[in-house]
């Protein structure tokens, strides 16, 4: 509702029209508010962020008293931010903020930190945005309390589905404490496009689909543009994005809903941004390049349009999440509509199965490519089936003497039900077992006299053993031994 509209309007940096798909009643208010907050400011992402923050914080939160203390402090901050950002109409923003805050149990951390950060915000807009430090690779927040800012941004992102605690955690660098939260927040900002998508997925349970869809794409776009402007070190931004990409997973969303959402979102978004999103959403490099390009342009232009163009990355963000079963997260730079996500899931399943097959089929480790693998598998299955045929023929000709033994073995085997004692005297057993069957062979095997003779010889030699064996055969243990012999050989 409020959040949806808030974030969607955020995303429309240049779009004054609230998304028609907005469902909340307060959408108009928030839309208006945000239009004023966001699009009138020719600022970079800082401005957007600030306005977002202000709108979030300044809300008096009538409906959500739980975070009142936080809101008070935030209100101060917002006040300062307002002056800086020339943003008005905090009331609607505050509503959104309150709505958002209510979603999360405690996105905000210690209130005392709020005071500190509020003080810090006095430094100006420049202080608010995160500056990437090329040397450290971390984002240096001019705030004394970066932690608070990180938390705020986290809460913001949560509200908008753009950030998430996980997202922050991922990007926290093991660097100076001051830089760390800033880095995390800045990373969250810079990587919002990809991370936002991910985060939205994670926080989807809190938001309706529409919210994440709209907010993610829209808000992320703005954040992306704004942060990209500030990012002085492309490498770090690239790293951040890489991290976000590496962390991306796939979440499977209800196809229809996603399709609907994306369909509704796309028309809502700026048309040019949509087109650009589709174009640029393919590869990380493309996004990064565009982001880098945008940095230069946005610095100079500072338009909502640039934010929109940078929002192309939005389509890497998949729309909401919720419900059911397999949750996949669309990777950065990939289409987010339901069909492509489902296809991606399917493709991953297939590749998993192919890998499993690769392990089964010997000699397939070097082979790459589905077609060659399939060919190898087919050949292997055919060869196995031919082997079965050949062996059955061999068995048919070779072992008519098996009759008695087989009859005995299964009967005893039932008692054991799988328990296999170690084969004792396997050679003896083998010799003893088969000669008894050879008795049959004499009569049944017309093939060769030699075979029969051999059988008889074997039988004669093994007679004393055979007698013992036959007695032993009646016992389960000996039966097992004989069976074990057979089993052991092929089990090895």
């Amino acid at each position, binding site marked *: 509702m409020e959040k949806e509209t808030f974030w969607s309007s955020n995303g429309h940096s240049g779009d004054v029209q609230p998304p028609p798909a907005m469902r909340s009643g307060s959408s108009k208010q928030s839309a208006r508010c945000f239009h004023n907050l966001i699009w009138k400011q020719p600022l970079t992402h800082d401005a957007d962020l600030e306005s977002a923050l202000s709108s979030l914080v300044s809300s008096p939160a009538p409906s959500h008293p739980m975070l009142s203390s936080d809101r008070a402090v935030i209100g101060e901050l917002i006040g300062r931010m307002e002056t800086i950002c020339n943003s008005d109409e905090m009331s609607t923003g505050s509503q959104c903020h309150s709505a958002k805050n209510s979603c999360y149990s405690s996105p905000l951390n210690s209130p005392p930190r709020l005071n500190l950060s509020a003080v810090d915000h006095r430094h100006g807009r420049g202080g608010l945005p995160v500056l990437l430090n090329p040397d450290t690779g971390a984002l240096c927040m001019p705030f004394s309390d970066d932690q608070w800012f990180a938390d705020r941004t986290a809460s913001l992102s949560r509200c908008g589905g753009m950030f998430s605690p996980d997202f922050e955690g991922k990007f926290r660098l093991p660097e100076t404490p001051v830089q760390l939260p800033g880095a995390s927040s800045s990373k969250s900002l810079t990587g919002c496009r990809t991370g936002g998508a991910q985060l939205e997925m994670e926080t989807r349970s809190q938001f309706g689909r529409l919210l994440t869809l709209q907010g993610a794409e829209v808000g992320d776009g703005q954040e992306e543009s704004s942060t990209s402007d500030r990012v002085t070190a492309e490498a770090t931004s690239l790293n951040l994005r890489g991290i976000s990409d590496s962390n991306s997973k796939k979440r499977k969303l209800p196809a229809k809903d996603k399709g609907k959402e994306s369909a509704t979102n796309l028309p809502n978004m700026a048309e040019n941004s949509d087109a650009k999103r589709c174009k640029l959403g393919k590869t990380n490099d493309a996004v990064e390049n565009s982001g880098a390009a945008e940095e230069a342009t946005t610095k100079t232009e500072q338009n909502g349009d640039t934010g929109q163009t940078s929002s192309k990355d939005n389509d890497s963000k998949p729309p909401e999440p919720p419900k059911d079963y397999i949750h996949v997260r669309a990777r950065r730079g990939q289409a987010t509509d339901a069909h492509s996500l489902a296809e991606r899931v399917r493709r991953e399943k297939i590749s998993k199965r192919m890998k499993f097959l690769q392990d089964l089929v010997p000699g397939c480790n070097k082979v790459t490519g589905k077609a060659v693998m399939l060919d190898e598998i*087919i050949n292997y299955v055919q060869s196995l089936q031919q082997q*079965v045929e050949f062996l059955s023929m061999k*068995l*048919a000709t070779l072992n008519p003497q098996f009759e008695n*033994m*087989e009859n005995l073995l299964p009967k005893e085997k*039932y008692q054991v039900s799988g328990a296999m004692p170690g084969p004792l005297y396997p050679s003896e057993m*083998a010799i003893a077992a088969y000669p008894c069957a050879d008795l049959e062979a004499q009569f049944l095997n017309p093939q060769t006299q030699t075979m029969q003779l051999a*059988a008889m010889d074997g039988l004669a030699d093994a007679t004393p053993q055979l007698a013992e064996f036959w007695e032993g055969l009646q016992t389960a243990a000996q039966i097992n031994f004989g069976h074990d012999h057979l089993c052991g050989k092929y089990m090895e």
Partner: protein
Amino acid sequence: MYRRSFKDTKSSLGSPNPNFSKPMVALRFLRALSLVRCSGPGARSPSYRARGIRRAAYACMAASAGPRRAWSRALLRKIRRRPGRGLRRPRAVIRRRRPVGGGDPLEVALRRLVPGGGCMEYCRLLEEAADYVKCLAMQVRLMQTIVDSASHVNSID
């Protein structure tokens, strides 16, 4: 005849055992072998016996794989249907859940190879193929062992 024996073995051995119950497979197979030999050791030609042994091998392989696998069910169905069962059960299994487009010749070949592969989706087909390959390899090893033992016995005698 050995069909009946297969059923007996399956029922007697009871619970659906895991795929890799080699002793059970061996047991079933040996029992089936003996039954095959019983049926017509002297009267039948080796080729007839060979066919019977092959059917026995597939049947016990499918039986040991368990009813949870689509390929084992299809294989048993194919084996048991062969004697020309005229009466089709009214509650016939819905055979073609999804008729395959069959654009990929490799996929089509795989479907033909794996029992019951005509009705499955591609993902499922790969899964069943993996299981089938596993069981087939096990069966081949078992038969090879039996042949080796038999020939070993014969050779030493």
